[in-house]
């Protein structure tokens, strides 16, 4: 017997239609939800990007205390901006909020290079000419003493380089180097004096401190300490009233070290800013990646002391090396570049810059005086087998506001953190 049962069949069909309808509703709900999430994310990213532009366009001192404000005076466009002086560079911290969502980015800010001041070599006018010998190459503009540039036969070597001596324009230099930025030096002095409280020893293998948190300071005091088998990264400052030794087993990433003297042991690899008042010694076969910095900063008179930076053979350095002495004494500050050292970036030697053999500088050199050392002989105003080439430096290279070649325009030097 065949049953008709129309009502029974209709209920089944209604059930199927009901299930289909609820599936459509759920799919639409999830799609809408995800889209709104993406829309909010895009808007926050847009606001973070606007915040970064405000930081990049602002002066070095703007937003140093941190500020929270509305970008367009609308809902859901609040941003928080903070600028932190981090040695040679600034660190920008940008956060954008929307209800419970927060998007943040931390970045390091560098200055573009002012091409009109950019030089392969700037030698202050000390009333004697610059003499070239061996296979010396100067590629890029050069600021030279009034007495000019000549070929020389020295140390049994004749000049074998380009006939024009300088492959670029030649300009006349002043008696003194263009000065370093005083605001940046003041900020650095604050970091040096550093009255901030901190731990007296590093008791962990690895410390990675976010730039969103407060700066982690380690005050080593008056004991000579060695950074060994430790990884330090981010918002970390190490201070010492005496010497700090850095072993090759230590890993430093964007941290700053302030001490009386710093000694880096052979084979070290890292990215850090090292500042000392007396001396910095870099052993052989070390590798410093961009953006690193080595600086002698002397704010007090130091009679009888000759502050110096010594970079040993076969070391590669990318970044900025500089010396600054507030009070000029009888002993000059010296940067000594060892054999087969490769430097990509800038050297600013307020007083003397001493070369040995086969040094390659991809970038710019500003020096008060040039010395050449061979065994126990010193030659003043001579360059022998030195390579200065501005063109070898990356076109994306950014400098610090401290160095006199910095242009007003700022760019993102490196991204540090984001979510």
């Amino acid at each position, binding site marked *: 017997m065949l049953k*008709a049962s*129309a009502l029974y069949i209709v209920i089944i069909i209604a059930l199927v239609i009901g299930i289909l309808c609820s599936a459509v509703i759920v799919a639409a709900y999830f799609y809408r939800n995800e889209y709104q999430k993406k829309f909010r994310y895009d808007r926050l990213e*847009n606001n973070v990007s606007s915040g970064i532009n405000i930081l990049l366009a602002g002066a070095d001192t703007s937003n140093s205390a941190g500020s929270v404000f509305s970008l367009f005076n609308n809902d859901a466009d609040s941003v928080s901006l903070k600028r932190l002086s981090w040695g040679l560079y600034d660190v920008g911290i940008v956060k954008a909020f929307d209800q419970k969502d927060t998007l943040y980015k931390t970045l390091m800010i560098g200055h573009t290079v002012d091409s009109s001041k950019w030089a392969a070599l700037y030698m202050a006018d000390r009333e004697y000419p610059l003499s070239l010998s061996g296979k010396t190459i100067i590629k890029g503009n050069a600021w030279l003493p009034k007495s000019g540039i000549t070929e020389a036969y020295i140390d049994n070597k004749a000049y074998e380089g380009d006939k024009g001596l300088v492959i670029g324009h030649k300009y006349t230099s002043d008696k003194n180097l263009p000065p370093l930025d005083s605001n940046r030096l003041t900020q650095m002095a604050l970091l040096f004096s550093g009255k901030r409280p901190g731990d007296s020893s590093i008791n962990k293998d690895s410390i990675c401190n976010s730039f969103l948190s407060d700066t982690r300071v380690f005050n080593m005091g008056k004991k000579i300490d060695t950074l060994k088998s430790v990884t330090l990264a981010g918002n970390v400052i190490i201070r010492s009233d005496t010497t700090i030794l850095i072993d090759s087993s230590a890993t430093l990433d964007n941290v700053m070290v302030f001490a009386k003297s710093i000694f880096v042991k052979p084979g070290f690899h890292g990215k850090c800013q090292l500042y000392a008042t007396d001396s910095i010694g870099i052993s052989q076969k070390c590798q410093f990646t961009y953006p690193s910095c080595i600086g002698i900063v002397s704010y007090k008179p130091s009679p009888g002391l000759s502050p110096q930076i010594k970079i040993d053979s076969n070391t590669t350095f990318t970044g900025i090396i500089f010396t600054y002495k507030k009070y000029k004494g009888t002993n000059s500050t010296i940067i000594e570049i060892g054999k087969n050292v490769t430097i990509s970036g800038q050297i600013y030697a307020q007083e003397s810059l001493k070369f040995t053999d086969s040094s390659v500088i991809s970038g710019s050199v500003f020096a008060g005086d040039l010395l050449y050392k061979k065994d126990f002989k010193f030659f003043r105003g001579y360059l022998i087998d030195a390579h200065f080439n501005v063109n070898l430096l990356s076109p994306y290279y950014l400098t610090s506001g401290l160095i006199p070649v910095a242009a007003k325009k700022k760019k993102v030097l490196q991204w540090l953190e984001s979510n």
Partner: protein
Amino acid sequence: MVRIKLNSRVKASTMLEVIIAMVVILVVFVIGMMIFTNVLKLSLSTKKIRAQALLGGFMLNAERAGANSNQLFTVDGFRIQQEASPYKNDSDLTTIQLTAYDQNQQKVAELKKIIIVQP
């Protein structure tokens, strides 16, 4: 040739059963269609998504060029209006507001950003 068994009985639904079934299925279909049209109406239109993607591209171009002028573009059936105004009297910064209108001059999407003006 089909042989009909005359002695078997085919049981039909009653008139009342058929009417109730028709009413139920009609109500279910109407509710289903209402839900479907509501979902379609409330869901995001591809037009809005397309307009937002277009604005993103225009903002990128404006940022690269450091644009600080008002402009009008017509792309892909949208009229895109670019308005530039100085940001808090800062000569280095500009607020760029991009608005996309459809063919009925209805606002479809909007994007605002602060950019650095190229010298």
